[in-house]
């Protein structure tokens, strides 16, 4: 029951040939009277992707805002910063912001930067965080698409 969607993938040239296969970001909104779920697919990185999610989250006035990050395969520092920003925005607006079903790479990044301790995170894929990540290529678990 996605009521709206923004899809930033599928750039094509003049002949309609797909130039970029990997999806950048798709956001599907499932809206109920008291809650809106933003289901994100693709990557949340600096630029159009972060701006799109910011605008879509800011436009929701429901009491509860849910970010479903189960299909987010890549997130950079700007994406993590956006989660912190949306958390602060929700506090100001007396909204409840919850992050659900975050993918393993997103869980790992939130844990690495200690955001998981601040944000309301549930149903997170179990992150295998160990003490020493250096050289471990932990980002190798990022790519699912």
């Amino acid at each position, binding site marked *: 029951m996605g009521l709206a969607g923004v899809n930033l993938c599928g750039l094509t040239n003049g002949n309609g040939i797909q130039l970029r296969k990997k999806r950048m970001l798709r956001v599907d909104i499932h809206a109920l009277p008291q809650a809106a779920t933003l289901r994100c697919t693709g990557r949340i*990185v*600096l*630029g159009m992707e972060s701006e799109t999610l910011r605008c879509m989250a800011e436009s929701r006035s429901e009491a509860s805002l849910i970010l479903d990050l189960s299909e987010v395969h*890549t997130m*950079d*520092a*700007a994406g*993590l*910063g*956006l989660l*912190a*920003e949306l*958390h*602060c925005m929700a506090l100001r607006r007396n909204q409840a912001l919850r992050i659900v079903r975050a993918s393993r790479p997103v869980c790992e*990044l939130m844990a*690495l*930067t*200690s955001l998981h*301790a*601040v944000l309301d995170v549930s149903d997170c894929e179990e992150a295998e965080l160990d003490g020493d*990540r*250096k*050289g471990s*290529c*932990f*980002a*190798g*678990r*990022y*790519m699912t698409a």
Partner: protein
Amino acid sequence: MHVTPRTEEQQRISKEFAFPGDAESLASSRQAMMDFLTPYFSNEAQEIDFFLTLQEALANAVFHGCQNDPSKTIQCRIEIDPSAVVITIRDPGPGFDPYGATQATEEGTNLTTYGRGIFLMRSLMDEVNYLHRGTELHLRKLRAASA
């Protein structure tokens, strides 16, 4: 036919890049460096490590070093030898304190939009060093360790 083994010097390759210092150029700048690096990755994990690292490094150079000004130039160099990939990124900005920039994130108290990029790069690379008051970034990733 006798084949002379190639010396390490002969196996070392490098390339220099110059990019405009604005956000619109960021994705194409990153992609140009990734296009050069990609043949040397042995797995997708390395590719994502470098993708994220270049994203953070170039974003810092664009927004902090160049103030998103396309008339300013970011100078980059990639060196690849059998043991490591070394990337140097130089911006024309006034520099900054790279240690102060990550303090809140390291302490787990960062609730702002910024301050996580350097922290992520340190997690992904084997060496991350800022020189010349923070205007020159040296990144090093061991190839054997990440293969």
